[in-house]
């Protein structure tokens, strides 16, 4: 099914034909397919809407890199945005300044809290050499305590349990005291699964939170969760100071779009991925992998990555050759600008010129200015780009109108380019250039 989708996407997108920059139509056509892919992956409809709107804004008018077709270019942007949204600030467990660190595990019934509790205990012992205890506060589900005792003990953690007679709040409070007495580094509190619409039980969680004052409150979420993930996240987030989430059952074949929903509703990072029933099948969450999984377009993404690399190399070589021959026209200027935007000036061709790299460091590229320069150059005929000295009078006016700028702006660009060309010719002949003119927009 995913393959079919990916194929369909490629077919739709391959027929798009604009060159240079993405048009409104390209983006609209591509986003229609992306929307379906995201919905198929269970990203919430509202989140899809917001997300595609943001992508549209970024995509329209942006450059198409080399071999990619417009559709693939949109996918590339979508993938980058997804990874960024899923990642955000570096995510890790917050440790208390004075132990024990208290970690509260919450979530719906059957989401995998107990298993995740034991795995997290194992992880913290192995990775942080912490001494870990777990509090058995699921007094609701039959035999939940027996389950926790078995899995947590196997994971090497101490279990504090008091059966099912006392209330979860009392047990949590008592367990915290014991953890202090026993000098534990970490106390993980396992709680009953509950529905986010169950007001009484949500209030009970609030109470557990109050008496244990946790450093981390982790929402445990099944990767197979559908559209409702936003409601779950919103309600748990409203009742508790969530600090992050754990995504479970990722060893299944769900695309896991719920991750995106939760991330955008709570604004909190996804810390861990749980990938099986064995206790070491638990790892730090990788936003990059998740973005790929949600999009389910592995092939397209690989292609994009390759095409992107190839084109940069090819362009660099071409440009270098032209530089050596002392040729440098407005097309070269444009492709250099695009490369600078894509990679930052230091990775661009200019930085490969000896001595130039250090001087370019810290130079800011003004995005809007680049957009303007680009618009002007694209409004010129290929002949004009090769022979900027022709740009005068009527041509100048036409270019200004075509690019939505002014005659002065066109003039400035032509002047600046003349200067840059002089510099580049010096470079081509092996002399140190005058850097003042490079990359800086004309004023």
């Amino acid at each position, binding site marked *: 099914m995913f393959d079919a989708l990916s194929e369909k996407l490629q077919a739709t997108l391959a027929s798009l034909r604009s060159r240079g920059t993405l048009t409104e139509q390209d983006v609209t056509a591509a986003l229609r397919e992306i929307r379906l892919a995201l919905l198929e992956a269970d990203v919430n409809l509202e989140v899809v809407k917001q997300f595609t709107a943001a992508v549209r804004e970024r995509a329209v008018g942006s450059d198409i890199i080399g071999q990619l077709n417009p559709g693939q270019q949109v996918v590339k942007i979508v993938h980058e945005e997804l990874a960024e949204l899923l990642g955000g600030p570096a995510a890790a467990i917050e440790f208390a300044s004075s132990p024990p660190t208290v970690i509260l595990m919450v979530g719906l019934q059957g989401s995998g809290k107990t298993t995740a509790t034991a795995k997290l205990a194992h992880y913290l012992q192995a990775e942080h050499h912490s001494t870990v205890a777990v509090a058995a506060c699921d007094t609701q589900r039959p*035999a939940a305590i027996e389950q926790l005792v078995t899995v947590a003990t196997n994971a090497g953690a101490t279990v504090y349990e008091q059966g099912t007679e006392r209330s979860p709040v009392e047990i949590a409070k008592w367990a915290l005291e014991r953890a202090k007495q026993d000098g534990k580094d970490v106390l993980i509190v396992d709680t009953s699964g509950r529905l986010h619409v169950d007001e009484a039980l949500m209030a009970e969680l609030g109470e557990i939170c109050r008496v244990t004052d946790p450093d981390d409150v982790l929402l445990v979420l099944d990767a*197979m*969760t559908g559209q409702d993930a936003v409601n779950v996240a919103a309600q748990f987030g409203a009742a508790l100071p969530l600090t992050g989430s754990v995504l479970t059952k990722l060893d299944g074949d*769900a695309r896991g779009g719920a991750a995106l929903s939760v991330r955008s509703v709570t604004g909190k990072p996804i810390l861990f991925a749980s990938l099986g029933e064995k206790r070491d099948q638990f790892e730090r969450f990788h936003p990059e992998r998740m973005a790929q999984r949600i999009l389910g377009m592995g092939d397209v993404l690989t292609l994009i990555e390759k095409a992107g690399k190839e084109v940069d190399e090819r362009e660099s070589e071409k440009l270098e050759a032209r530089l050596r021959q002392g040729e440098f026209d407005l097309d070269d200027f444009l492709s250099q600008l695009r490369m600078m935007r894509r990679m930052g000036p230091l990775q661009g061709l200019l930085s490969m010129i000896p001595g130039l790299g250090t001087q370019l460091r810290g130079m800011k590229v003004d995005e809007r200015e680049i957009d303007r320069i680009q618009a002007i150059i694209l409004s010129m005929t290929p002949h004009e780009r090769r022979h900027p000295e022709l740009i005068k009078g009527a041509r100048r006016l036409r270019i200004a109108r075509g690019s939505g700028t002014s005659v002065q702006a066109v003039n400035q660009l032509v002047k600046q380019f003349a200067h840059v060309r002089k510099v580049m010719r010096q470079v081509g002949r092996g002399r140190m250039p005058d850097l003042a003119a490079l990359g800086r927009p004309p004023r």
Partner: protein
Amino acid sequence: MTPGQAAASSASRKPTQLSGPRRNHLARVARDWDELLLTRRGRSAAVDEDGEDADGRRRGAFSRLRESLRATRQALGSEVAATFSRTLTAHDWDALEESLIVADVGGPAAAEIVSGLESTVRRERLDGDELRERLVELLAAEATVTGGAPLHIDLRPEPTVILMVGVNGTGKTTTIGKLAWRLTHEEGLRVLLAAADTFRAAATEQLERWAERAGADIVTAAAGSDPGSVAFDAVARARGEGYDVVLVDTAGRLHNQEPLMAELAKVRRVIANQLAGAPHETLLSLDATTGQNGLRQARAFADAVALDGIVLTKLDGSAKGGIALAIARELAIPVKLIGIGEALEDLRPFDPDEFARALIE
């Protein structure tokens, strides 16, 4: 209704007779326990002896469900509901499609359903309240499987073996507990549970607790022992001791893990070897919160063990279980039961009307 009449009306629900225009089948879909369960006595003794009480309980269960669905209705409902009082514009159809997507019906299925509804409504020239009711009816028809597995659960074989399968945490054990209670307490049947989840820690203890609550007996084995042999022993014991129903609990497993699916297929074969025709009913427990992956779950479990029906659990939350609609359309596997809580009585026969109403309300 006398037991005789009930038996007659049960007979009329045989799948072979479910032909003709789709909407007419709605009247024959099980919405009630005595319609869902086909027993040797026709109707359950409890209902016959004490009809009023049973009705009272029924109303109780309904209002519970309504109550629990209220939050969802409010979240989604107003926009769609408002549009049904007049004729529908393109925008309204979009809103309907969106509410189906948000209910996890899935993008392609939602689009198809809405365009189907649109042409029906145009053909029938409906508007106002009439339109709203008709939409519910049409959606309910979408959720009703025709020509697939029977819509009832046949408890006439002696013993009837019911195999419960599904992904981890979806509600298999809980459903077995609730069903066992229903069958012992309300239907007066002798029920034996088989603790064939020998894998998850304390799974047997969990089922033992349910057996006590439900007044059922249980066959257990040591942790880690062969699930097939637990099922085999339970069926053998049920035959020897004259139990009416055997409910076999199994370990949760992800449908993409082939060795585990093969293990499940083996459990099924072992049961069939012990008793020809068994298991008589294989039920998939599906969490209503599940998104599009539910379709893959259903397909994989159906391939491995052949499914007769679905138990849609956790409908007491705000998720609507729309994926069941996609499953009904694609795989013709009917939802037979719904879970609406964690208590013994929180299991209900599936009512497509109510389900449809919740989708758009």
